[in-house]
């Protein structure tokens, strides 16, 4: 619940130069993009773009600069541009990240910055992959609240503590950064993958849900949680800071300790 706060002072002394960053720095980068244009060339290839970028520009800004000023055929998905819609997971310098959340100045700009599509899903064009298999796994874990009996007239009661148990896994934006960074998923596309397990966790540990057992049964499958080798790639990749490996461990634990 919101707490009552004392009125803040009408006037404060600001630190010198607060908020002011002085000049906006510019710098040059080489963006090395893995291109794949199935309508013109059969093979994927690397292409370099030399760009001048500004202070807080992100990899997405660099991609836009290529698309808008140099080569309109460069194709990638994006929408929100601030890390909440999950459209633009890609491999940046070999690591899965969101292009809109990766500041260029945080990368080593003395070397080419490599950008490629995420791995393990069918490549369609440039940085675009077919997301259908990813969403298929998600749908299989029954990602919706299941309850029995009559609905209450008002809201279901849930304590703040009960809600906190699954808070972390409600943050998922289904970007696939985790699943497509998982070595098990690369070799076995049938594996549910971390994102599906994260979303199962979100319901299994929701005090209001009554189908945890069904979901645990699904994940107890040979393509389920036991394929996870705890490589931690997924946790490192998650742009939402979800502790993916921890969530998977909690699901494993729940399967082992359940009473049925």
């Amino acid at each position, binding site marked *: *619940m*919101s*707490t009552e706060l004392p009125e*803040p*002072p*009408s*006037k*404060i*002394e*600001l630190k010198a130069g*607060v*908020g002011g*960053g002085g*000049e906006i720095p510019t710098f040059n980068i080489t963006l090395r993009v893995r291109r794949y244009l*199935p309508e013109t060339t059969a093979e994927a290839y690397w292409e370099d773009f030399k760009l001048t970028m500004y202070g*807080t520009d992100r990899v997405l800004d660099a991609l836009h600069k290529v*698309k*808008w000023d140099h080569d*309109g*055929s460069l*194709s*990638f998905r994006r*929408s*929100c*541009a*601030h890390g*909440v*819609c*999950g*459209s633009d997971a890609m491999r940046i310098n070999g690591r899965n990240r969101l292009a809109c*959340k990766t*500041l260029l100045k945080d990368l080593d700009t003395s070397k080419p910055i490599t950008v490629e599509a995420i791995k393990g899903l069918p490549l*369609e*064009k*440039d940085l*675009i992959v077919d*997301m259908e298999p990813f*969403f298929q796994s998600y749908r299989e874990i029954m*990602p*919706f*609240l299941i309850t029995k009996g009559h*609905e*209450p007239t008002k*809201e*279901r*009661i*849930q*304590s*703040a503590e009960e*809600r906190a148990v*699954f*808070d972390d896994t*409600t*943050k998922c*934006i*289904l970007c696939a950064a985790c699943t497509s960074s998982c070595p098990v998923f690369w070799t076995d596309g049938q594996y549910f993958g971390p994102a599906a397990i994260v979303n199962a966790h979100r*319901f299994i540990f*929701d005090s*209001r*849900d009554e189908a945890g057992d069904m979901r645990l049964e699904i994940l107890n499958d040979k393509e389920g949680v036991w394929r996870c080798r705890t490589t931690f790639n997924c946790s490192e990749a998650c742009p939402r800071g979800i502790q993916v490996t921890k969530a998977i461990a909690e699901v494993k634990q729940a399967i082992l300790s359940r009473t049925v």
Partner: protein
Amino acid sequence: MQVHKYDVVIVGAGGAGMRAAIESGQRARTAVLTKLYPTRSHTGAAQGGMCAALANVEEDNWEWHTFDTVKGGDYIVDQDAAEVMAKEAIDAVLDLEKMGLPFNRTPEGKIDQRRFGGHTRDHGKAAVRRACYAADRTGHMILQTLYQNCVKHNVEFYNEYYVLDLLMVEEEAFREDGTAYQQKRVAGVVSYDLATGELHVFQAKSVIFASGGAGKVFKTTSNAHTLTGDGMGIAFRSGLPLEDMEFFQFHPTGLAGLGILLTEGARGEGAILRNSDGERFMERYAPTIKDLAPRDIVARAMANEVREGRGCGPNKDYVLLDLTHLEPEHIESKLPDITEFARTYLGVEPFTDPVPVYPTAHYAMGGVPTNIETEVLQDNDTVIPGLYAAGETACVSVHGANRLGTNSLLDINVFGRRAGIAAAKYAQDADFVELPENPDALVTAQLEGLLSSTGTENVAALRKTLQDTMDAKVQVFRDEKSLTEALEVIEDLRKRYKNVSIQDKGKRFNLDLLEAVELGFLLDLAEVMTTAALHRKESRGGHYREDYPNRDDENFMIHSMAYRDHNATTEGISGIRLETKPVVVTRYQPMERKY
């Protein structure tokens, strides 16, 4: 070209589209066409909350909520619609909870509520806790919860299908007084499949437009790259009116230079605005509710501080959002995402340093006119059978000249639900309207024209000029000169647009082509917005004319209705006809809007 047949086709899978789909999908054969994967929709970016007078933490009722909505909208709200929304708000929130939405909770385990700008107790006496929320990702949780329930109900999605045209037929009909008119009826839509470049025609008894906003008309905006007003643009080209397009909301707290939103919830939790003197300047502009005054007032106050030389930073072009007096723990639990935005994108640590902010283009109050049953109007009072609209693309109108925070997540749920039910019900009794011959002719010609063009104009360059112009001349301060200048630029851009060419000539995932199509919608909408703004010679809500600084109820207590009409000229712009529509007033007579 492929042809599909459905009872109901929904255009858009944001909050409004999916809320509609959950209802319609259980009653009629429904397809949802969306240019983005549903979970990528911009509803997911909403942070602060969704309001309803649940009275879970303090006394409240829907009538106060109605009043706040009407007053917040500067009295140009249709009061019957506001009342429906405020009443149905309570069930809308409870429905979401039952679908699984993890709201933050009170110590008793009920849905928690917090303050939000313009929401008050007993007609303005004090701020009230009305916004239900899930940390600062309420929109994310709404979008996820609705998608989850669509999965549950096996809703059929056509992902990455861009709807580019609305198919309607016209037939002669007669009004009660015997005069003849052309009655439009909906037959379906034409869509473009991004993956293959193929056109798909969907024949449908009912069509619901839920295609979201048009923030990309502006440069500094909280809106996604994909919010290009397609639905409004399509309706307008099809001869339907657009209502109240001059009213666009500028949210006070966008990250300076970027436009990324920091929720008003931050001020709800106690953050305040300061100028370069460290002064809490809102005490001067809205002595009673200060930093929690409605958005238009706060945004103008900020712009005014900057204009009068009290801005911060190297260019003195922004003000500061100060959270430094707040408990870090409290903020981390209530607003984790926005503190992260400040850190990630500006490198500012919000617990020790105030965050640079400036108004950002946020929300289109206007849109495709509907009645409270979400039926689209072809003029002031003629409904188009089978055509519905809901969400930001529609104008019911519940937001009037200025939307209150948390009222849009509410709008999409209340009117999304209504649209889904109404569209399915209509489809049960109606017959299919026969498709026109060559239903895809217009779209085919447009796309082929772009693909084969050898013109010299560049899409990105035209778009940038448009967005820069709108920011400079049609933002929080407007006057005859700035608007006229903006229109000159827009007219020039519209001419140059005919001469654009694109580089990608392929069929697969040709986003180059679609950006060109989207620019066409942006140009149309910018023209309508600016023309309507020039015509409205008064200041009301989000529309502030420096040359007419007062509200003028005598002449302008009316909605504007803009039509594409090649025989008409408005404010020197040929091709636009501007009409008016009365405002529905039930309980509340216009009063001065003071906070």
